[in-house]
C-alpha cells in the first residue's frame, strides 16, 4: 500500500517541490542546451562531408528507408510512453510510472538493436566504415553519438527502476525520474533531425 500512502503526501509537480529538485530541473535544461550545441556541431560536420564518399558507396545507394522508418517509429513511440510515465509521476501513480518507463526502455533497446544491425549491415555488405571515407567518418560519428546517448539512457532508467522499485515515490526520487524523461525527449528530437538530415536528404537531397 506504499503507493497509496505516498499519493496523499506528495504535492503537485513533485519533481520541482524541493530546492534540490528545482536546481536539478534547471541544471538539466542547461545541460541539454550544451548537448544541443554538441549535436549541432556534429550536424555541421556531417553536412560539410556528406558528399565526400571517396569513390565508395553513396548515401542514396546505402540507405533503406523501411528499416529507418521502423527505427523512427520505435523511438517516437518510446517518447510517447515516457510522456505517459511523466503523467503518472505528476499524479503520483508510482506503479503505472514504472510500467511505462519499462516499456520506454524496451522500445529504446529495440531501436538500439536495429541500429546495431544497420551498422553491421553497412560494414559487411557495403564496406562502408569509419575509415572508408570522410562521409563514413561523419555518418558513424553523428549516428553513433546518438546511439551512445540511447544506450546511456537505457542504462540510466534501468538503474533508476531497480534502485527505486521498492521504495516508491518521494520528493528525493521524483526529480530523478523526471530528468530521465527530459533526456529521453531530447534524444528523440535529435533523432528526428538525424532522420531528416542524414536519411531523407541522403535519399532525395
Amino acid at each position, binding site marked *: 500500500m506504499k503507493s497509496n500512502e505516498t499519493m496523499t503526501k506528495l504535492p503537485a509537480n513533485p519533481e520541482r517541490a524541493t530546492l534540490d529538485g528545482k536546481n536539478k530541473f534547471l541544471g538539466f535544461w542547461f545541460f541539454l542546451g550544451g548537448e544541443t*550545441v554538441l549535436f549541432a556541431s556534429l550536424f555541421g560536420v556531417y553536412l*560539410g562531408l556528406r558528399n565526400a564518399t571517396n569513390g565508395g558507396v553513396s548515401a542514396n545507394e546505402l540507405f533503406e528507408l523501411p528499416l529507418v522508418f521502423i527505427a523512427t517509429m520505435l523511438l517516437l513511440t518510446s517518447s510517447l510512453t515516457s510522456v505517459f510515465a511523466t503523467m503518472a509521476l505528476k499524479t503520483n501513480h508510482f506503479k503505472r510510472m514504472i510500467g511505462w518507463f519499462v516499456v520506454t526502455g524496451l522500445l529504446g533497446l529495440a531501436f538500439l538493436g536495429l541500429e546495431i544491425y544497420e551498422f553491421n549491415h553497412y560494414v559487411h555488405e557495403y564496406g562502408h566504415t569509419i575509415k572508408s571515407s*570522410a562521409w563514413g*567518418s561523419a555518418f*558513424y560519428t553523428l549516428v553513433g553519438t546518438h546511439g551512445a546517448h540511447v544506450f546511456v539512457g537505457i542504462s540510466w532508467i534501468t538503474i533508476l527502476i531497480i534502485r527505486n522499485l521498492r521504495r516508491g515515490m518521494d520528493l528525493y526520487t521524483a526529480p530523478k525520474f523526471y530528468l530521465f524523461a527530459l533526456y529521453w525527449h531530447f534524444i528523440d528530437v535529435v533523432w528526428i533531425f538525424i532522420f531528416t538530415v542524414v536519411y531523407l536528404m541522403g535519399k532525395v537531397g
Partner: protein
Amino acid sequence: MSAHAYKKKNPVWDWLTTVDHKKIGILYLASGAFFFLLGGLEAILLRVQLLYPEFDFVGAETFNQLLTMHGTTMIFLAAMPLIFGFMNAIVPLQIGARDVAFPFVNSLGFWLFTAGGILLNLGWFLGGAPDAGWTGYAPLSTTSPGNGVDFYVLGLQISGIGTLIGGINFLVTIINMRAPGMTFMRMPLFTWSSFITSGLILFAFPALTIGLALLMFDRLFGSQFFAAEAGGNPIIYEHLFWIFGHPEVYILVLPAFGMFSEIIATFARKRLFGYSAMVFATALIGFLGFMVWVHHMFTVGLGPIANSIFAVATMLIAVPTGVKIFNWLFTMWGGKVSFPTANLFAVGFIPSFVLGGMTGVMLSVPPADYQYHDSYFVVAHFHYVIVGGVVFGLFAGMYYWWPKIFGTVLNEFLGKLHFWLFFIGFHLTFFPMHFLGLMGMPRRVYTYLSGQSLDEANFAATMGAFLMGLATIIMVWNIIQTSVKGKKAGNDPWDGRTLEWAIASPAPEYNFAQTPLVRGLDAWWLEKRAGNKAMVAAEPLDDIHMPDSSILPLVLSLGLFIAALAAIYSNWIIAIGGLVITAAAMILRSVIDYHGYHIHKEDLPAEGREGK
C-alpha cells in the same frame, strides 16, 4: 548529526572529498597558480631562445613543444581554473547563498580539470609534449608523430568536461540560490560577469568537445575527417576550434571585467558608474562573442562576403567594450581614489587593455589582417588583451579577495613592487612585438636571422620577460610570507560594498548563519550607511543543512584519466577498465542517497549569529 559536523577530520581526506565551494575555490586557485608558474617558465624559456638571432638554446623541436604548452597551459590550465577559483570563493558569498546548487558536480568539475591538466603535461615525461600549437590545427595535429598531440586531445577533453559542468553549476546557483531581495539588477558585477561567462562556457565548450573528439578519431581510429586525400576537410576543424575559441576569449576576460568593476568602485568609494549599462554591455559582449570566430580565419579564403560580415561583427564588439572603459573612468571621476595594490592592477589594466583593443580593431579589417596574420603583431595583440586584461584582473582579484579567502592581508610593499615590475616588464616584452610583426617576423618560429633590424626589439622583449619573472618571484615570496606570518584581516578590510564583506574572514563553512535580506545595490554598503553593524536577517536562526562530502568525484576523474592514458598507448583492456571505474562511480552516486547533515543552531559560534 551535528557530531558529524564537528568530528575531527583527516585534513588530506577532507581536501580530497570536500564539496565546500570555498575549499574547492582554494583548490582551483592552488592548481591554477601551479600551472601559471609552469606556463610562465615555458614562456621564459621561449624568450631565451629568441634572445639573439640564430641562438641555440632549446632548439626547434623543444621550442615547438614549449610554444604549444605555454599557450595551452596558460589558457586552459591557468586562466580558467584561477577564474573558477574566484567564482567558487566569491560568487555564493556575493549573492548571500549558503552553498552552490550542485556541490558534488562542483567538486567533480575540479577533479576532472586536474586530471586533464596532469594528463596534458605527462607528455613532457613520456616521449615529447604536444607540438602542434595551442590551436592544434589539422593536418599538422593529425600527422604529428609520437604521442604528444594525443596528450593534448585527451587532456583537454577531460578538463573541458570539468569546465562545462562547473559552468552549469554557476548558472543554476546564480538563478536559484540568491538571497531574498537580491534581484538580478542588484547583483554585483563580478557575479553578473560570472553568470554570463558560465553561459558562454555552456554554449562554447561543446564545439571544442566535438573538435577534439574528431581529432582523436582521426589519430587513434583512422577516421578521415581532416584527411583531404579521403575527402576530409581540415577547415572544419578550424571552424569548430574557433566557434569555441573566440567565446573562450570572453569567457576569460569577462570575469576580469567584473573584478575591475568591484575593485575600482570600492577604492573610488563610489557606486559603480552606469551599473545597468555595465550589465547590458557584458551581456552584449557575450552575445556578439559567438558571431566573430571567422576573424581568426580571414586568410583561409572564405570569400569577401563572409569576411566582411565577420569584420563588422568584430568591430561592433568595440562598442560595448568602450562603454565599459568609460564607465570605469567615470566611476573614478570625483571619487576618493586610493591605490592599494589591487587598485593599481585595476587602473593599470585600463590603458594596457585599451591598447590591445585598438590593435584588435586594426586586426578586424580583413585587407589589413592579410598583412598582420601569423606575425608578431598578433602575438602582441592577444598578450595585451590576455595579460593586460585577464592576468591583471586575476592579480587585482588576488590582492582584493585574499583577506576574504584566507583571512590574512598580503604585504602591500611587496605587492606594489610586484605591480610595478610586472607592469614595466609586460610593456617592455609586448610593445616591441607590434613592430616586430609589422617588420614581418612570423610567430611560432624558433629563430630569426641577424641584420634584419629584429635584434634589438627581441632583446628588449626577453629582458621584459625576465622582469615579469622577477615580479612573479616577488609575488610568490609575498604569498609564502603572508601564509607563514600574515597580518590577520578584519571582516571588511577595504570598507567593501558587497555581501562577502559582511561576514567573517575567512567565511565559515555555512557562509551565512542567517540568510541576509538584501535591500539594494551594494547591499553591505547600504547597511553600513544606515548605521547597521550587520546585515538584516531574512529568516530566524535555525539548523543549517550541509551537503555530504564524497570521494566519488576523485574516483570518477581517476577512471577517466586511466582510460585516456591507456587509450593513448592503444591498450584497450586497461582503457575499458578505466571507463568501468568511471561508470561505477556514476552508478554509486545515483544509487546512494545523499541527504546531507545539519549543523544545529546551538552549535553555531556566537559571533556567527548575526542581526539579533
